[in-house]
């Protein structure tokens, strides 16, 4: 090699080519932002705030939001929901698909665990409701008070976790975060996939999906 310009041009062109292939082509094919599923609601104002707390507290580093196909992993039988499809993420910016499952997938946590009280207790003292969990506690989302104002959410705690001489109430951030979690529900049928019941037991339907090739969705 003798020409620096050749290297500069060559390296830039190769990356441009890879960018076309990896970013532009999928974007043309998917256009997820333009066709949200009718059953998927945009985040409410409170949920959007809760989502910001989810991002700021780094929940994504332990919780994924992308249930996999039954052919690949038993995510459905764990109750995490059907395999996600591109349209499910139409309102997600930034996306929160995640890459770790130190904790379980949360894409449908609102359906699996619809209790506000459970979430509050779990955020304040994770091991009181989920023994063995290594989730950090989030005491700074709550405050200890001797007077519970009207409309405040008091955290229900087993005796050994109770604070002597006071009640634990949720701060607005906790309320918003839980509101976001409860809103996580993508159980509506996905038009690009067969109904959940069909794929759960039969491997053959999974295979036929794989065969559908180019326009199919990742198994």
């Amino acid at each position, binding site marked *: *090699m*003798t*020409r*620096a310009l050749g290297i*500069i041009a*060559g*390296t*830039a062109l*190769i*990356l441009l080519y*890879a*960018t076309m292939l*990896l*970013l532009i082509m*999928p*974007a043309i094919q*998917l256009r*997820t932002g333009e066709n949200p599923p009718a059953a998927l609601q945009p985040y409410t104002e409170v949920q959007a705030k809760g989502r910001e707390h989810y*991002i*700021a*507290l*780094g*929940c*994504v*580093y*332990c919780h*994924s939001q*992308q249930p*996999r*196909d039954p052919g*690949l*992993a*038993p995510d459905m039988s764990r109750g995490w929901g059907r395999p996600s*499809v*591109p349209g*499910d*993420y*139409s309102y997600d*910016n930034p*996306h*929160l*698909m*995640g*890459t*770790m499952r*130190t904790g379980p997938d949360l894409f449908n946590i609102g359906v699996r665990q619809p209790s506000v009280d459970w979430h509050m207790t779990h955020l304040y003292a*994770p091991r009181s409701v989920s023994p063995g969990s*290594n*989730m*950090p*506690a*989030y005491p*700074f989302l709550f405050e200890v008070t001797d007077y519970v104002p009207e409309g405040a959410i008091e955290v229900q705690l087993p005796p050994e976790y109770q604070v002597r001489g006071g009640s634990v109430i949720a701060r607005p951030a906790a309320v918003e975060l839980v509101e976001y979690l409860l809103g996580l529900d993508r159980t509506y049928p996905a038009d690009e996939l067969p109904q959940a019941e069909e794929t759960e037991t039969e491997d053959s339907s999974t295979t036929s999906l*794989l065969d559908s*090739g*180019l*326009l*199919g*969705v*990742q198994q």
Partner: protein
Amino acid sequence: MVWGLANDQWGDGEEASKVIFAEGELGRGEDPAQTGVQRKDLESDVRSGKLVIDEEELAERRLLDRTGRRPVLWWLTSSIVWLLLGSLFGVVASLKLHLPDWLIQDAVLTFGRIRPAHLNVVAYGWASMAGVGVGIWLVPRLFKAPLVGGQFATVGAILWNIGMFIGTVAVLAGFSAGLEWLEFPWQADVFLVLGGALAAVPLLMTVVRRRVHHLYVSAWYLIGALVWFPMLLITAKLPLFIGTEQAIMNWWFAHNVLGLWMTPLGLAAAYYFIAKITGSAIYSYTLSLIGFWALALFYSQVGVHHLIGGPVPTWLTTLSIVTSVMMVIPVVAVAINHHMTVLPKWRMVLTSPTLRFVVAGAMMYTFASIQGSIEALRSVNAVTHFTHYTVAHAHMGVYGFFSFVLFGSIYFILPRLVTWEWPHIWAIELHFWLVFLGFGIYFWPLSIGGWLQGTAMLDAARPFMDSVLLTMPYLKARSAGGILMTLGHVVFASHFILVLLRMGPVSELPPKLMQGFGKGRNSEVKA
């Protein structure tokens, strides 16, 4: 394209692999971080006979080595500060995984902030800054010309540090942009792009004034890295994508930071130091050419293997899996070149600290890359995805390969910049064994624990909590390993500061570094 670009350059062949040596120097090793006794050992290892070295050229090179003094010291010293901070974040995050009720009173200290702070500080603070520093120092060596425009790189280092500071504070304060590897808000990344662009200026200004005909393989990797990184970061930060497309962009970017930024910087250093310290031309120049273009072509497309099983088109993950496996080609090309060059001189690994670090790093590059290709296979990925196994693998690449190569490079470079020898050989040995053993204790348990975690998650009959509980002993081992690595970094940083301040005892034989200057050891070189 590869073929075409390669073909019109084919004839250059082996000549180009010798441009890094002075006239008659081929066959003579070079390493300033050794004791005199070690160096005697080493010289008996190196082929002797008919060595008529151009001493004038060597003397000139000693001056060239110092032409990048200010910018290189800026980048390297900053990188070591970030290394210490990043290690601290890493240990805290690791401990938190098995001590979840430790340091929970403030949001700043929660796991979800310390962990991204760790990643960004070590990736962009330590690894990137040290990589750029080493790269700038290599420029006069590769082109046999004084570094021109070094002041741009100095300003670049200052801007980069400002960006790092803004970004780290933002992540800790809860202003993360939310995407992994891209947590820094765009306001911080503007500084990184500008800083990186300024660091490329002396490379370009010196390359046009070069006094060698051929560009050595390290130069291609440096040029590639400095072309790719701004393209990647700017594209990733443009608000073009949301939802699924954004996830694809996210992993296109994140894996390219490893593949098209850290890897070429690391390989540039490894290709130079392995050849230079052993005093041998690299095994096959043609292979290095194939390795470079194949890396560019295949590595740039592997990112979506992070979304196997995710809501992305099948053809896209398949493309990434195929290119991940194709990565075997450049990896084997590089492996043959590195390992076959060292093999005839393997005993030098025992005596040369730089070579020991760089060769260990090169071996871990081969290992990490082959492991990565296997990990991208759908069946293996089903187990390892979403587990600590992937975390261990990532550290094999960024730490085992890249950081080891950087450690070795800095041991070579620093004495030549400040004309002061490393005072304590034992500290270099201690650093090596702390990080080498510490990393072993980090990597193997975490890989095993991650694999078991994955198999537990795939077994529908086992409750999810099994996959959490079974990882605990492995996570504790990882913390122990991480603490040892951090201690190694403290030893390294302290030693670095001693040399910077020109302190510490002097060793028994005159250092080779000063030969030809007539004055006693460790005296200031007069231009």
